[in-house]
């Protein structure tokens, strides 16, 4: 029983943390992108407009949710829920800080520290594609259909690139458990450079790019390209259902940033000192700092780049990213082979 209660507490805390972060995230994005564009962004709701997201959410909550005549009602209603649930689930395996030891028991700071964390993440994010595909299909309307076709193609191809980009990480760290991957990045190379997986630079870049595509962010936002296909898959959604899609997108942004942090930037690793409490808090701080920097990078990219075209996007994914990662995997396995078994000529 106590295992069950612990799990519930962990999940509730994780979701609470995630939702608060997303509220903040939307605000930070709007503020930062407006600064990049000489604007000032939201200012009215709360100090510096920090409550703007909450206000928007409340507004959507009280708006009428319209169901189109030709919609496939059940799928239409299910799609936003799937989107949010998968986005939330993905976060569960990400550790936000170093394990804490209380009374001799070690508690991991991931809601669910499973051994095949990476596989879990890939699995959950593939289910996320269904939400968008179904949303477009079930709306019974043409623009959403175009959007969902784009989405399926885009997410499936970039899923592949993302999966391949993770292989070197696994090879390098020797584990599929996310906590173990972070652990393996503690320490330093030559005593100075932190031993982060970012040394797997090609994987890092490909993972980031695929991350943009997975979250449908600019320059890969052609799934919801407003100027072309109005709203893409969520054209027909209104009120809270639209807000759920919106929420899911921002949760994914946070997830991808957090993943990048744990997989490539050493997760919670960073200088830790002082009393026990500080020893607990500092890793969380380092983790959040790195994650937020990546989020700001996401926003910066969005402000600086135009949107790609559908065929260019596919060509980029299949003809550039995937061959690149494959080549990199081969190169890395040779290098690792040398390291582990010695060079054949030696």
């Amino acid at each position: 029983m106590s295992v069950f209660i612990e799990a519930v507490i962990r999940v509730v805390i994780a979701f609470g943390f995630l939702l608060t972060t997303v509220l903040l995230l939307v605000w930070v994005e709007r503020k930062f992108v407006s600064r990049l564009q000489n604007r000032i962004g939201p200012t009215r709701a709360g100090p510096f407009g920090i409550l703007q997201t909450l206000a928007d959410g409340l507004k959507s909550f009280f708006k009428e949710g319209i169901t189109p005549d030709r919609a496939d009602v059940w799928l239409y209603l299910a799609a936003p829920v799937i989107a949010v649930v998968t986005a939330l689930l993905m976060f569960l395996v990400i550790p936000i800080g170093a394990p804490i030891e209380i009374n001799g028991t070690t508690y991991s700071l991931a809601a669910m520290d499973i051994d095949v964390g990476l596989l879990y993440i890939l699995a959950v994010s593939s289910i996320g594609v269904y939400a968008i595909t179904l949303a477009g299909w079930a709306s019974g309307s043409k623009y959403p259909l175009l959007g969902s076709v784009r989405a399926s193609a885009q997410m499936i191809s970039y899923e592949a690139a993302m999966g391949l980009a993770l292989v070197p990480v696994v090879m390098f760290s020797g584990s599929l458990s996310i906590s173990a991957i972070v652990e393996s990045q503690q320490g330093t190379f030559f005593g100075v450079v932190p031993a982060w997986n970012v040394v797997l630079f090609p994987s890092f870049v490909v993972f980031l790019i695929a991350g943009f595509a997975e979250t449908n962010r600019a320059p890969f936002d052609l799934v919801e390209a407003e100027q072309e296909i109005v709203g893409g898959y969520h054209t027909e959604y209104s009120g809270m259902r639209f807000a759920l899609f919106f929420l899911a997108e921002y949760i994914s942004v946070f997830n991808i940033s957090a993943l990048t942090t744990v997989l490539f930037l050493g997760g919670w690793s960073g200088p830790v000192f002082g009393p026990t409490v500080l020893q607990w808090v500092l890793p969380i701080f380092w983790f959040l700092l790195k994650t937020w920097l990546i989020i700001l990078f996401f926003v910066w990219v969005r402000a600086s780049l135009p949107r790609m075209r559908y065929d260019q996007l596919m060509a980029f994914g299949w003809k550039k990213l995937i061959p690149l990662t494959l080549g990199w995997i081969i190169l890395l396995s040779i290098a690792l082979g040398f390291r582990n078994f010695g060079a054949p000529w030696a």
Partner: protein
Amino acid sequence: MSWFADMLGPFRGFAVTLRQLSRPAVTTQYPDEKRVKPERFHGRHVLNRNLDGTEKCIGCELCAAVCPAKCIYVRGADNPPDNPVSEGERFGFVYEINMLRCIFCALCVEACPTEAITMTHLFEMSTTDRTEAIYTKDDLLVERDGTPNHPYPESPLININELRLGDGWMRATSPSGRADYEGVVQWSPSARTGSMPAEVGQSGDISHEETPDG
């Protein structure tokens, strides 16, 4: 190093967006801060009075005739001899402007021979009722001491003081293209704004042979 610059080419855009962080935002936080409007701004009309409190409008209907949107309705009446309302023989007995039709072209201002109708810097006139958009003489005419009227009370949006500014377009079009008449006051003072100076114009180089007085 040119190959290095070439390689950076695709990323130069990132520097442009980042550079904006050091610049001030261009947003004006309306209505908390209102931008300074130029002198010639075309805002809400007012009907002016002379310094002695008589109305400037002589009911000549020129403004109504020239209005391309046909939104001014004027009916003149003879001045009562014992207590004249205006300086001339007649005065504007009914004066209405339909602000929904008005395109703020300021042709009425140019047409008015007595500078009775001029434009101010106030443009906050939104309403929820169409009938309220027809401004009557009560709304348009300033008080005897020059205090302007407005159908809506002062609010964060509406700054009644803006109704005291303006007349720039009337002053700018007064010379009507004659260099000789630039920089010359060609209008009588009004109770609302007092004696307004003329724009400097290009007068420095043009001699004023026949300088008419105000």
